[in-house]
Structures are given as structure tokens and as C-alpha cells.
């Protein structure tokens, strides 16, 4: 009964979404207030219906209802409850339902927090979101219905893929999807602006917080995925340039460009067409990512659903949504003015350079991801594009972008002077260069790439410090330094915090790729192996029973400077319902680095109590990679809390006056 309620809710949701799509858009076009007023209640109804459907599927998982095909395929009575709930999005159909749930949550948020926006604008934004929802609901209903029955019911479910039975899975997809789907709001604002022809600073102001919020979620989602791959796959890497990783990274790159470009559009009214195109692209790449993952057009470890019908549907959907937006863009963009002029060297030009670098980086990732498909389609053979390509293309593009992070906050809008920037930043650069030159010596060998990476990280930190000091000094007016610091606009603070996150990330990546060490060794009970200043003693392997698996648990002592620091227990798990043995690495994390041990195979299969193949890693500063992403996200959250978004919420005043005030002190 419950699955039928879920199914019915989805069908009703589709009808509501269609109405939400067409009525308010038509109302905004014709100026009929009654039609535009439909947008908000419709979005609430839609959220309620999709919420009901999601709750129904969750309840089917909780109750082990194996008469639902999707539940039978992804769950098992032995599966612990938290994983049974997370298993809702452990497969294709449920992932889409989660996607949909996120979309209605965003839609609802727009409906709630847009009271200060002109009514036709809200109607258009919600209308576009309604159309996107309708497309996704149709996709779910036609090709991927999670409520399809399995009659007669299965006795026992097939269980969730053991790789996904991990706390990382509970959080990673919802975060990632919040980010992916969040760009649909920026997209809807862009389309609404194109439809109304109202492409101005106010529009940029409205879409900014939404874009930043989506970007924060996407940043966290990608970081979580990378962290999960690091400790769960047991390969010791944190990024593999896998097509599915790329699918999430491309919208992030464009989203980052969009965040910066929106700043220019808001403050200076420039880059309007460019910003709109980025907003369309960010969401398009989210959809493209969905297509690449869901259609199985590229092989990858993630491709758990491959069905040509699904592929064709998503491709049609993709074509319709993106194609029509680009047609609209080509039609409307020529009429949009150019906005404020700026000199060859100005904050605008530096942000434009940043945008170009990010877009080129994204294009090169897209090319690398699709190149095997292109070659195959042309009948030129099969090949795969791996990390060497991506590293070779990506790193040189990012180096100048990282350098510019330090420069841009010191460049004035409209026109900046080289000598002023040099004077303001020369000490920052000299100190950063000294840090870059000296810091690698802490790790023993001096390597040029490490020196360069640490120089850039130090450069970002120092220039941010200089920028804050300069700004506080200029606005101080006799008050204490700290008090003035606390009164800086949140967007300014957020920007620098996010940039500090980039610095931490760069430092982590640089040091771990320069100095990581790994050893594959054969270990007898009692053996010791040393890596990166630590040593591991192997005390043997014992058996342990988990809820739905049995495990062989290795017992290792981690020894530093002759003392046992702690014990580490890597596992080899054998899940009852699947053939694949799973490796659970044991990691000792610290601010200065991780040591990491994972069990390979017993040397003699019949004697798991004797010698084992063991892999040990030393990963200096590796946690800075995810820590950096966290700091970036925190920076985004701080920027979101900026007063001007809230002031507008309360007063509902019109844009120009406060925008002018902001332009003065930013």
C-alpha cells in the first residue's frame, strides 16, 4: 500500500510541476497577477508531494519491503538501519528521487525567501524550476520508477553494494546533489532575467546568495566524495580523474567562475551576458554529469545503472533544457548592454582572467572526459584518458589563477595601477618566496614543484592578511583593530576565508604529492616495517563478525620514536550477500599527515594466521586537502551571511542605493 501512495504522489507531483511550470510563466508574460500568484502555493504542494514519495520509499526500506524491486535490489534484512536509510539513494532510481527532493527543497527555499523580489520575477524563477521538476519527474515515472513492484516478493534483498556501506555514503550524495541541483536556481534566475529582459545589478544580487549556497554544497559534496574514495577504496589516492568525479568537478569550476563573475555584475554591471552564460553552463554541466553517470555512456566505477532508454531520455531532456536556454540566450543577449567600461588592468580584467582560466580548465576536463567517446564514435579505436593528461593540462592553468587570487583584492575597480599593486604586495611576495624556498627543506629533499606550490599557498595567505590589515587600517578611524575587523562586511571576510581554504588545499596537494611514501611488504607476525619516520609492527590477524559480514582484522602497532603511539586495525571484510571482499584501511590522521595501513591478501591462502601482504602509506598534510575544502565552504557560508542579503529581506528597498553604498566600501 505505501509504495502505491508513493507512486501516486509522484504522479500528482508531475501534474503540479507542469502547472507550476506553465501557469506562472504565462502569467508573468501576460501580466496576470492571479496566474503568477499560483507559483508559490504550487511549489509548496510540489515539495509536499515529493516529500511524501521520498518518505514512502524510505519506509519501504526501513520495513524491508522486498516486494518493491528497488528495495530488493539494494537492501537486506541484515543491513543496519542507518544504511537501510542511506540505501534509499544507493541506486539509480533512489538517487533520482533524492535529486528530485533536493530540487523541491531549493524551489521551496526560493518561494520562501523571495518576498522582496518583484512578483513576475518570482513567478518566472519558480516557473522555470517547475519545468525542470516536471522533466525529472517524467524521467522517474517513465524509466526509473523506484516503486515498481516485484511480485512475488523476494525472500531476501540483494543487499547494498558493500563499497557504499559507509558513513561517507550517507552524506556524500545528498551534499553533492544539493550542489548540483542548487545551480538550477542560478539557472532559473538567469532564464527569468533573459525572459524579462531585466538583466541588471539587482538580478545579480538576487542570484548571488543562491549561487554561493549551491557552490558551498558542491564543494562539501566533492570533498566528501574524495575523502570517501581515500579511505574506503584503500588505494591511497584522493582524486582519480574518474569520469564521474569529473562530472562533479566541471560544474564546480564553472560555479566558481560564476561566483566571481556575479560579483562583477553586481558591483559594476559588467559581464552580464557572460554571467548568464555561466549560470546556464553550470546547470547544464550538472545535467550533463547526470547524463554521463546515469546513461553509462562512459565506463567508470560509478556506472551502476546502464540502460539505453534512460540515456535517450536524459539526452532528450538535456537537449530540450539546454538547447532552449541557449536559443533564448542567442536571441536576447545581443540586446543587453555592455555595462561599465574598465581598463586593461583593473579588478574587472583580473576577474575576467580568472574566469577565462577556470572555463578553459573546465573545457579541458570536459575534453579529457569525452575524448575516449569521441575517438570511439569516429571509429578510431578505444582509449582512455588518465591522470597524466589532466595533471599536465590542469596544473599550468591553475598556477596563474592561484597567483591572481593574491593580486585581485588589491586592484581597484575600473582602473588599477601596477606600481600601487607592486608596492602594496612586494613584501608579501618576498616572504612567500622565502617560505616556498625554505619549507620543502623541512621534508628533506628540495623539489621545485613543491617550492612553487608552497610559494603560492604562502602568497595567498600573506596577501589575504595584507588585504585585511590594509582594509581595517583604512576604515579604523580611531577604534581598536579587532573591533574594526569584526565590522568588516561578511562578504569581504568570506572571500578571504575561502581563499585561505584554497591556500590550505594547495599546500596539502603539493606536499602530499611531493613527499608521500608507500610500501608494499610481506609481513610475518611480529615483523616491523618503517615508512616516513614511523614504523608498524604486525601482531597478526583475528576473525570478527559484523552485522552482515565477517571480517579478518589485522592488529598493527604504530610506533614513533620507539614508543607505541596507537593501535591500528585494518580489515578485510567478506559480505554475506556479495562476492567482493572489501578492504577497510586503518588510518591514523593528524594535522601533519596520515599514516595508513591496509591489508592485502594472505601470502598462503590457507593460513590467514601467518604472513600477509600489507600496504603502508605515509601521507604528509593530506588532510589539508579536505580541510581546505571545508575552509572554502565556510568562507562561502560567511559570505552568505552578509548583511546586505538580510537587509534586503527585511526592508525590501530597491537595489541601486544599497548597491552604491556597497560599491564604495568594497
Amino acid at each position, binding site marked *: 500500500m505505501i509504495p502505491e501512495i508513493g507512486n501516486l504522489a509522484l504522479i500528482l507531483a508531475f501534474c503540479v510541476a507542469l502547472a507550476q511550470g506553465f501557469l506562472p510563466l504565462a502569467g508573468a508574460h501576460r501580466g496576470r497577477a492571479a496566474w503568477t500568484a499560483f507559483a508559490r502555493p504550487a511549489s509548496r504542494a510540489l515539495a509536499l508531494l515529493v516529500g511524501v514519495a521520498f518518505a514512502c520509499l524510505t519506509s519501504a526500506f526501513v520495513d524491508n519491503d522486498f516486494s518493491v524491486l528497488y528495495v530488493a535490489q539494494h537492501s537486506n534484512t541484515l543491513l543496519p538501519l542507518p544504511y537501510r536509510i542511506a540505501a534509499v539513494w544507493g541506486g539509480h532510481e533512489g538517487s533520482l528521487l533524492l535529486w528530485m527532493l533536493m530540487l523541491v527543497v531549493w524551489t521551496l527555499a526560493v518561494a520562501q525567501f523571495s518576498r522582496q523580489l518583484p512578483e513576475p520575477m518570482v513567478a518566472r524563477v519558480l516557473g522555470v524550476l517547475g519545468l525542470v521538476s516536471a522533466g525529472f519527474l517524467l524521467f522517474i515515472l517513465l524509466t526509473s520508477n523506484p516503486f515498481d513492484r516485484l511480485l512475488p516478493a523476494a525472500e531476501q534483498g540483494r543487499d547494498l553494494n558493500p563499497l557504499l556501506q559507509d558513513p561517507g555514503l550517507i552524506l556524500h550524495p545528498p551534499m553533492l546533489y544539493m550542489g548540483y541541483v542548487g545551480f538550477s536556481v542560478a539557472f532559473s534566475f538567469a532564464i527569468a532575467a533573459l525572459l524579462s529582459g531585466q538583466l541588471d545589478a539587482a538580478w545579480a544580487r538576487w542570484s548571488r546568495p543562491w549561487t554561493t549556497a549551491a557552490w558551498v554544497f558542491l564543494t562539501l559534496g566533492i570533498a566528501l566524495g574524495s575523502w570517501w574514495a581515500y579511505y574506503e577504496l584503500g588505494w591511497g589516492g584522493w582524486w582519480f580523474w574518474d569520469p564521474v568525479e569529473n562530472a562533479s568537478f566541471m560544474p564546480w569550476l564553472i560555479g566558481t567562475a560564476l561566483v566571481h563573475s556575479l560579483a562583477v555584475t553586481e558591483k559594476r554591471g559588467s559581464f552580464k*551576458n557572460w554571467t548568464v*552564460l555561466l549560470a*546556464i*553552463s553550470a546547470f*547544464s554541466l550538472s545535467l*550533463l554529469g547526470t*547524463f554521463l553517470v546515469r*546513461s*553509462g*555512456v*562512459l*565506463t567508470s566505477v560509478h556506472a551502476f545503472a546502464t540502460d*539505453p532508454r534512460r*540515456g*535517450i531520455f536524459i*539526452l532528450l531532456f*538535456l*537537449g530540450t533544457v*539546454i*538547447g532552449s536556454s*541557449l*536559443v533564448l*540566450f*542567442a536571441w536576447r*543577449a*545581443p540586446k543587453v548592454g555592455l555595462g561599465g567600461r574598465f581598463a586593461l588592468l583593473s579588478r574587472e580584467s583580473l576577474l575576467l582572467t580568472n574566469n577565462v582560466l577556470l572555463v578553459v580548465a573546465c573545457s579541458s576536463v570536459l575534453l579529457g572526459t*569525452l575524448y*575516449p*567517446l*569521441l575517438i*570511439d*564514435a569516429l571509429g578510431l*579505436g*578505444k582509449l582512455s584518458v588518465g591522470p597524466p593528461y589532466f595533471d599536465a593540462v590542469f596544473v599550468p592553468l591553475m598556477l596563474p589563477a592561484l597567483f591572481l587570487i593574491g593580486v585581485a583584492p588589491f586592484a581597484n575597480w575600473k582602473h588599477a595601477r601596477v606600481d600601487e599593486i607592486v608596492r602594496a604586495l612586494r613584501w608579501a611576495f618576498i616572504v612567500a618566496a622565502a617560505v616556498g624556498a625554505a619549507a620543502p627543506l623541512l621534508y628533506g629533499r628540495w623539489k621545485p614543484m613543491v617550492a612553487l606550490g608552497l610559494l603560492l599557498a604562502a602568497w595567498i595567505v600573506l596577501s589575504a592578511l595584507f588585504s585585511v590589515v590594509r582594509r581595517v587600517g583604512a576604515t579604523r578611524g580611531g577604534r581598536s583593530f579587532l573591533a574594526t575587523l569584526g565590522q568588516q562586511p561578511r562578504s569581504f571576510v568570506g572571500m578571504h576565508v575561502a581563499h585561505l581554504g584554497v591556500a590550505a588545499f594547495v599546500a596539502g596537494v603539493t606536499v602530499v604529492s611531493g613527499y608521500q611514501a608507500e610500501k608494499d611488504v610481506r609481513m610475518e607476525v611480529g615483523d616491523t616495517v618503517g615508512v616516513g619516520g614511523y614504523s608498524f609492527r604486525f601482531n597478526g590477524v583475528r576473525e570478527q563478525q559484523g552485522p552482515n559480514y565477517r571480517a579478518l582484522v589485522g592488529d598493527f602497532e604504530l610506533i614513533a620514536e620507539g614508543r607505541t603511539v596507537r593501535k591500528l586495525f585494518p580489515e578485510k571484510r*567478506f559480505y554475506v550477500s*556479495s*562476492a*567482493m571482499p572489501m578492504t577497510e584501511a586503518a588510518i591514523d590522521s593528524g594535522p601533519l599527515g596520515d599514516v595508513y595501513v591496509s591489508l592485502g591478501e594472505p601470502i598462503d*591462502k*590457507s593460513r*590467514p594466521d601467518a604472513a600477509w601482504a600489507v600496504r603502508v602509506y605515509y601521507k604528509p598534510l593530506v588532510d589539508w586537502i579536505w580541510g581546505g575544502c571545508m575552509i572554502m565552504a565556510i568562507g562561502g557560508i560567511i559570505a552568505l551571511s552578509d548583511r546586505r542579503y538580510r537587509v534586503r529581506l527585511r526592508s525590501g528597498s530597491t537595489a541601486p542605493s544599497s548597491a552604491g553604498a556597497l560599491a564604495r566600501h568594497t
Partner: protein
Amino acid sequence: MNRFLWPLIAFIALVVLLAVGLGLNPREVPSPLVGKPAPAFTLPRLDAPAKTFSPQEMLGRVWLLNVWASWCVSCRHEHPVLVDLARQHAVPLVGLNYKEVRGDAAIDADKLSRDEERQQVVERAGAWLARHGNPYTLSVLDIDGRVGIDYGVYGVPETYVIDKAGIIRLKHIGPVTPEIVSGKLLPLIQEISK
């Protein structure tokens, strides 16, 4: 020309590429063995474990080598197709029973002695063929999977077409379907049997 049309044009090109890509199978990796002689082996026969079989015996004939195991779910799906194919007597079909015991996740093969394992292989494989029908001219036992390594087996079932000179002409990974038999296997067999 309107320069704002360029994104649309680029996007259309992308959609065309993706549409073409949908028709392709990324898992279809060309085997380096195609065009090379079938790796030699000598393995015990399932019907008479005292006797052995090796590919040299098939020289001068076109034949199929099908990799199977009783634990392999897809093998059960393709089995009726093979039984059908055998009925047509178009071509000899040799089964390579691959890791019958140690490939099965439900069994802890490490606890078995070699003789016990061998005995179980014969029992299980024989029972499976008795239940689902035996399309094979004969089956051989690759108990430890070494021959499978020579042939580059990475998913069971797999099917090889081997010509009169003992050269592998086609490798099909995954279950064969009636469409693959009529569209790919039989035309090729006819062509190289001339």
C-alpha cells in the same frame, strides 16, 4: 552571424556526439588475442576426467570456446541460447569450466585440499549440465583458472570463435543472445568455414 549562437552550436555538436556515444558499448574492449593463435592448454575433460583435451585437436575445424561456471548467473541466461545453437549442429562448442569452486564466493576454497576441490568441481559442473542441458561437445576443467588467465578472461561468460588455423577470430564478453548468435557468430562462422 550572431556570435551569441556559438554556445548553441557547440552544444548541438556535443549532443550529437553523446547521441552517437549512446549507441556504443564502452565495455566492448577489443581483445589483443583477436588475430592471434588460441593459447595452448591441456586440461582434463568433465565427462572423463582421466582424459584430456587441447586446442590442437580442433585444427582444421572452426569451433567455439565458451567460458562458463555454475555460479555464474549470466551463464544461466545464455545457456538456452547455447543449447539452441548446439541443436543446429553448426559448429562444435567446447566449454571451459572456469574456477568452478574457487570462483564461487559462497565456498571457502582455501579450506579444501586439491583432490577435494577437483571432486567438487566435477560434481557441481556435472549436476549443473544435467539440470540445464548440455550444449557442449565437451567441457574441460580449468580448476585454478590458469587457462583463463592465458585467454584474458575477465568476465564469465565469454565466448571465442577460433578458426581452422587455430586463430582467435572473435571474443565476445558477456552472455550471448539470439541476436548475437544470428547477427555476429553464425555469419562469421559461415565466412571462415568456407
